[in-house]
C-alpha cells in the first residue's frame, strides 16, 4: 500500500463527507438549531402521544408540571451530554461507531435502528392512513389490528408510495418538510383552541372560559382526569416527567442527535433543542390531548381509539387531512431513509434495491396495524433503552477515558476489527435493563438511567482490560497525520465553498414572506383565537368554527405556495443564481 501525502490527500477528498468530521465553515449558529428542533419535534406522533397521556390517566397538574420538568431535563441532556460529544468529535454517531466500536457493533446497532425506524415510519404512515380512510368510506379502526381489508389496503398503498418517495424523492420531501414547521406549530395550537369550547360545552353547558383556572378545571375534568383507561388512578408526576424525558432518550443519552449537533459552533446550542421540547412536546402534546378528548366526546367514542385523522378533521376541517398527511409523511420520510441506510450498513453486500425492498415490506406490513402507532410512546421508550448503552459507551470514551488516562480511540489505534468490550457491555446492559424491567422495581421510562450508568462502568473496566490504557505510538502518529490532512482538506474546501450566507432583502421576497406569514399563519391564528374567545354559545361556536375551517384550508394552500417559492428563491440565491431572483443585497446571516 502506497501511503504518500498526495495519495492520502486524494483519498480524503474522495471519502464520503459523512465519514469525516464536519468542517468549521459548515458550522451553524443557534438560530439554525432553534428552527431545526422546532421542526423535528412537531410531527404526527404528537397527535398520538397527547392522547396516550390521557389514556394513561395523567392529571392536569402532573401534565403541566411534569412535562415542563421532563422536557427541561431532555433539553439539558442534549446540552450537557449530546452536544459536547458532538462538538468535540464533529462526527455522527454512526460514523463514530464505525470508527471506534468496530464492525460488528456497527452492524448490530444499525440492525436495531432498522427495526426502530421502520416501526416509527409504519406508525406515521398509519397515522396518515387514518385521514385518508375517510375519503374512501372506510370505518374507523378501533382495534389493534386492521378490522377492514380496505384500510389495510390503504395503509399498505400509502406505505408503498412513501417507500418509493423516500427512495427516489427523499430530498424533495425533506426540503418540503423544512417549510412545514411554522405552519405545523400554528395548526397544532389552533386545533386545540378550536375544540376547547366544544369540550367545555359537553362538561359545563357553556362554550366560554373566563380564566386559566377554568381551563385547568376543564382539562382536569375531561382530559387529564387522573384516571386511566381501566378506571384506576393513572400515572403521576414522576411518570410524566419520565415519559417526557425518555421520549427522546435515543437522541440525547443515546447520542443519535450527534448527527445534527455536530454542526453546532458551541455545545451550548444543545439548549436550542428546547424549541422542540417546549413546543412539540409540551404545547403540541397538550393541544393534541385536548383535540382528542373533544373529538371522542363528539363522536361518543373513547380517546383511546379515536384516530388522528378524525381528531385533525374535527379540529381543523379539511386542513386537518392535510396536517395529518403532511406531518405523517414528513416524519415517515426521514425515518424510512434512515431505516434504509441502516439496513444497507447491515447487509453491505446485498444490492441496495433488495435491502430497501425488504425494509419497505416490513413497513408495509407494520403500517396496517394501528397497534404500532397507538403504542408509539412505549416503543420510543424501549427503543431508547436498547440504544442508550451505546451512548454510555461513547460518553465513557469521550469524558471518562481522558480523565483516567485511557485512550478514547484505543480500538482504532489497536487496529482491531471488533470492539469486544463494547459488544459485551451492550449485551450486559440489555440483560440488565430488560431484567430490571421484568422486576418492576423501576418504571420502564427510567430504565435508561441505570442502564446508561452500567454501560459507562462496564465499558471502562472492560476497555481498560482490553488495552485502552496502553500506548500505540505508531498508530497515534498516523491518526495525527490523518487529522492534519483532514484539516488541510477542510481548508481547501472552505476556500471554494460559499460560507457567508447571503440575506435576501428584495421587495419581492419581502412580499412573498409577508404573504405566507400573514395569510398562512396569522389569519388562521386569529380565526382560532376568535373561535376560542368569541363564541358565547354553541351556535356562535359553530359559526366561528366553520369560518375557521373554510378560510384555513385556503390559507394553507397559500402558505405552501408562497413558502415553497420563498425557499426556492433563497436556494437560488445561495447558489448565486442572481439572474432568476432579481436584485438582492448580500448581508451576513444573523
Amino acid at each position, binding site marked *: 500500500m502506497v501511503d504518500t501525502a498526495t495519495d492520502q490527500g486524494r483519498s480524503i477528498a474522495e471519502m464520503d463527507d459523512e465519514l469525516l468530521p464536519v468542517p468549521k465553515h459548515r458550522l451553524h449558529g443557534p438560530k439554525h438549531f432553534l428552527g431545526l428542533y422546532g421542526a423535528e419535534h412537531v410531527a404526527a406522533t404528537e397527535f398520538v402521544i397527547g392522547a396516550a397521556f390521557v*389514556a394513561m390517566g395523567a392529571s392536569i397538574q402532573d401534565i403541566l408540571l411534569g412535562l415542563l420538568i421532563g422536557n427541561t431535563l431532555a433539553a439539558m441532556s442534549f446540552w450537557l451530554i449530546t452536544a459536547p460529544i458532538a462538538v468535540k468529535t464533529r462526527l455522527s454517531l454512526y460514523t463514530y461507531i464505525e470508527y471506534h466500536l468496530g464492525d460488528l457493533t456497527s452492524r448490530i446497532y444499525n440492525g436495531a435502528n432498522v427495526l426502530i425506524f421502520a416501526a416509527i415510519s409504519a406508525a406515521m404512515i398509519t397515522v396518515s392512513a387514518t385521514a385518508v380512510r*375517510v375519503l374512501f*368510506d372506510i370505518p*374507523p379502526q*378501533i*382495534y389493534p389490528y386492521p378490522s377492514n381489508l380496505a384500510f389495510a389496503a390503504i395503509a399498505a398503498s400509502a406505505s408503498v408510495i412513501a417507500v418509493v418517495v423516500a427512495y427516489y424523492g427523499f430530498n424533495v420531501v425533506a426540503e418540503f418538510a423544512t417549510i412545514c414547521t411554522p405552519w405545523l406549530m400554528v395548526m397544532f395550537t389552533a386545533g386545540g383552541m378550536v375544540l376547547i369550547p*366544544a369540550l367545555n*360545552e*359537553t*362538561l359545563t*353547558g357553556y362554550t366560554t372560559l373566563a380564566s386559566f383556572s377554568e381551563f385547568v378545571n376543564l382539562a382536569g375534568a*375531561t382530559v387529564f382526569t387522573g*384516571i386511566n*383507561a*381501566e*378506571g384506576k388512578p393513572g400515572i403521576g408526576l414522576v411518570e410524566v416527567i419520565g415519559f417526557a424525558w425518555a421520549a427522546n432518550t435515543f437522541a440525547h443519552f443515546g447520542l443519535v442527535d450527534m448527527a445534527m449537533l455536530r454542526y453546532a459552533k458551541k455545545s451550548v446550542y444543545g439548549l436550542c433543542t428546547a424549541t422542540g421540547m417546549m413546543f412539540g412536546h409540551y404545547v403540541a402534546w397538550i393541544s393534541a390531548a385536548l383535540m382528542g378528548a373533544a373529538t*371522542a*366526546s*363528539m*363522536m*361518543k*367514542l*373513547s*380517546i*383511546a*381509539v379515536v384516530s388522528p385523522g*378524525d381528531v385533525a*378533521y*374535527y379540529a381543523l*376541517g379539511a386542513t386537518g387531512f392535510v396536517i395529518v398527511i403532511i406531518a405523517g409523511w414528513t416524519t415517515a420520510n426521514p425515518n424510512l431513509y434512515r431505516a434504509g441506510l441502516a439496513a444497507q450498513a447491515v447487509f453491505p453486500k446485498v444490492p441496495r434495491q433488495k435491502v430497501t425492498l425488504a425494509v419497505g415490506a416490513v413497513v408495509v406490513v407494520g403500517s396496517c396495524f394501528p397497534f404500532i402507532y397507538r403504542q408509539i410512546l412505549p416503543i420510543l421508550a424501549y427503543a431508547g433503552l436498547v440504544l442508550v448503552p451505546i451512548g454510555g459507551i461513547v460518553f465513557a470514551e469521550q469524558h471518562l477515558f481522558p480523565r483516567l488516562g485511557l485512550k478514547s480511540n484505543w480500538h482504532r489505534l489497536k487496529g482491531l476489527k471488533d470492539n469486544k468490550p463494547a459488544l459485551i457491555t451492550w449485551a450486559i446492559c440489555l440483560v440488565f435493563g430488560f431484567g430490571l424491567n421484568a422486576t418492576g422495581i423501576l418504571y420502564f421510562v427510567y430504565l435508561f438511567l441505570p442502564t446508561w450508568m452500567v454501560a459507562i462502568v462496564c465499558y471502562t473496566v472492560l476497555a481498560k482490560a482490553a488495552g485502552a490504557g496502553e500506548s500505540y505510538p505508531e498508530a497515534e502518529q498516523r491518526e495525527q497525520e490523518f487529522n492534519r490532512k483532514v484539516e488541510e482538506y477542510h481548508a481547501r474546501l472552505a476556500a471554494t465553498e460559499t460560507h457567508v450566507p447571503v440575506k435576501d432583502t428584495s421587495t419581492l421576497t419581502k412580499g412573498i414572506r409577508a404573504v405566507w406569514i400573514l395569510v398562512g399563519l396569522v389569519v388562521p391564528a386569529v380565526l382560532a383565537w376568535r373561535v376560542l374567545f368569541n363564541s358565547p*354559545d*354553541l*351556535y356562535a*361556536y*359553530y*359559526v366561528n368554527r*366553520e369560518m375557521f375551517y373554510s378560510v384555513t384550508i385556503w390559507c394553507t394552500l397559500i402558505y405552501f405556495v408562497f413558502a415553497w417559492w420563498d425557499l426556492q428563491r433563497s436556494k437560488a440565491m445561495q447558489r448565486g443564481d442572481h439572474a432568476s431572483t432579481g436584485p438582492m443585497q448580500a448581508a451576513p446571516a444573523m
Partner: protein
Amino acid sequence: MKTTRITSMPIACLALSTIFSAAMADTITIATVDNGDMVRMQGLTEHFTKANPDITVEWVTLDENTLRQRATTDIATGGGQFDVVTIGTYEASIWAARDWLVPLDDLPGGYDIGDLLPSIRAGLSYDGVLYAAPFYGESSFTMYRTDLFEEAGLEMPEEPTWDFIKEAASALTDREQGISGVCLRGKAGWGENMALVTSMANSFGAKWFDMNWQPQLDSEAWNNALTTYAELLSKYGPVDASSRGYQENLALFQQGQCAIWIDATAAGQFVMNEDSTVADSVGFAMAPDNGLGKRANWLWAWALAIPTSTDRQESAKKFVAWATSKDYLALVAETDGWASVPPGTRKSLYENPEYQKVPFAAMTLASIEAADPTAPTVEEVPYTGVQFVAFPEFTGIATAVGQQFANVLEDAATIEDALKNSQWVTEKQMVRVEMLNR
C-alpha cells in the same frame, strides 16, 4: 360422640361449600348513574345474590358524562372492566350499531320479553333485536290545573290539540295572580327545549332529515311548530321562559304558577307529592297533536346493557334479567310501595290493580304507547328516536339549534332567521358527520 360427629358434618360441609362458592363466585361489575332507581336497585341486590350465590355484584356509580367516557373507553379497548352498564335510549342504538353490546333476546330465568312495552322495546333495539333491557321508561304528557280549568269553564280533552292548548292558555293566563297559561321547556339544550320542540315538531309533521339525510329545518312544518311554540311562551308563558327547563317549570307548577305544563310523565309523581301546593287539583292528558296522527310526546328509557367486552356474559345476563323483571317490580312494590316502582317498562305493571290506582299511571302508559321511535313523525324518516336523532353528533347540533330557538323567545331572532340558521348549522355539521361516519 357419634351424634356430635354426625351433626358437625353438615355444618362443616356447609362452611366448606360457602367458602368454596365464595372462592368460585363470578363477580360482575355494574357501571351506573347516580339516580334514585339505581340506588334502590343496589339496596335490593342482596335478593339477587341470595338467589345466585355463585355471583357477586360490584357497583361503580358515576355521573352521566364520566360513565359514558369510562364505558366507551372500556368497551372500545376491550378492557372488560364493566359487565353491565346503564345507558339510555340515545346510546342504545348507537352502541349496538358499533357492535359494542350483547344482544339480549335470550335473557334467562323466564324473562318475559313480550311483556315489555313495545315502544320502549323498539327504542332499545337495533335491527329488531333488543340490546338493552329497560328498568325505567317515560314519555311526556299534559299536566293541568283542574281547579283553574273549572273556574274558567274549560274542559281538558283526553287528547288535546295545540289549538286547544293555545285557547286554554289564553283563557287561563292571569299575570296579576302570577299564573302563566302554559309552561314549556325554554332553556336551550338537546335534553331541554329541543326534547320538547322536536316532539312538538313531529306532531306538526316536521322532521330533522329527509330520507337522503338532508336537513329539513327550513320547512313549513318546522315554521308552524316553532311559531306555535314561540306564541305560546311569549304570550302565555312564564317570564324568562328561555331560562326555564324541567326543574324550573316543575317548581313553578308546584307553586301553582302554571295552568298547563307539558313535560315528562316522570313529573306526575312530583306534581302530586307533598312538595306541591296544587297536589289535589292536577289532571293529566295526552301530549297535544295537530290532527296529523302524531302526538308531541317523547320517549326515553334507562336500561341495562352488557358490553361485548365482558368475560362474564352469562352472569351479567342473569343480573340484567333479574333487575328488569316483573319479579323485581314486585319486590320494589313490596319493600318501598307501588309509588316507588320504576314506571314505563312492562305491560303487566299497568295491568296490576294496585298500580292502576296511581292517578297518572294510565296516562303514562297511553303516552308511552303513543310514541314510536321507529316512526317518530308523520312521514317516513331514515332515523330512529322521537325527541332525538340517534347519531353521535346530534347532541351538539340540537343544542346549537336550541339556542336559536331560545333566541326567538328572547326576541333576539325572528322565527325565519332562527330556522335559517338552524338549517345552516345542521347542514354544515352533517357534512362532517357524513364525512367521518359514512
